[in-house]
């Protein structure tokens, strides 16, 4: 079963070089606080600027939590990342789906940014593999359920 990729576009009023720069070197600045995977909030999100480079968040204490790695670094037009956060949003070096970001010139000095997050169906495989190999599927499910139930309780 294939699940359609997530495709998003946005137009910005500055050229691809700047769009690429802000997207990559300033990710820690624009990324929403709390929308990260580590226990502590991020102070920076780093994409090392070369193929094979790491993509990670860093907290105030300097603890780094990896998200994935760089597959293609082609400024100012294209960035291809491996998203290596599995179905439970945990880093798994053996798991990856592709995240491609294109920066195309548009109009008078603008840029059209297109983002595609694909291979969605692999999340299902990763959940099964995790559960089969370490047998933690059900304890985790129950834990998540308890969290969810608790949240519902507090938002009533």
């Amino acid at each position, binding site marked *: *079963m294939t*699940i*359609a990729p*997530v495709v*998003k*576009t*946005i137009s*910005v*009023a*500055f*050229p691809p*070089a*700047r*769009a*690429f*720069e*802000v*997207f990559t*070197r*300033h990710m820690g*600045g*624009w*990324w*929403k606080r709390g*929308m990260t995977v580590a226990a502590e909030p991020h102070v920076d999100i780093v994409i090392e600027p070369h193929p094979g480079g790491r993509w990670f968040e860093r907290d105030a204490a300097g603890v780094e939590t990896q998200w994935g790695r760089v597959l293609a670094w082609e400024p*100012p037009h294209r960035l291809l990342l491996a998203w290596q956060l599995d*179905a*439970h*949003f945990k880093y798994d070096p053996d798991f990856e789906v592709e995240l491609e970001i294109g920066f195309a010139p548009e109009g008078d000095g603008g840029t059209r*940014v297109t*983002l595609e*997050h694909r291979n*969605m169906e692999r*999340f*299902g495989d*990763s*959940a*099964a593999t*995790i*559960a*089969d190999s370490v047998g933690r*599927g*059900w304890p*985790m*499910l129950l834990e*998540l*359920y308890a*969290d*969810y139930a608790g*949240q519902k309780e507090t938002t009533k």
Partner: protein
Amino acid sequence: MANRITAAIALSTLSDPTRREIFERLAERPRAVGELAATLPVTRPAVSQHLRVLKDAGLVAETAQGTRRIYRIDPRGIGAIRDWLDRHWSDALDAFKAYAEAHPEEEIKP
């Protein structure tokens, strides 16, 4: 966050091989309990139990057809993680644009 949990529950539910098998057969086409039980090495009550778990996780939906209950996949379950990412990237790109526009060019040199 709630949707992220929904996604995790849906995917954890599919970690059971029998449930995955049932889910895959329903992905081919809708089927009744008896039809599923006839081709699986488990009893009919066991199939019903698995269907109940799949239904609770939002993966499977049932409809009545005469006296029979027909089960089909509910795309909301398997699509939960996709939906979460879909919304996440919409927000993220908006945040990216707002950040870039709020910071003068001299601060961010290409």
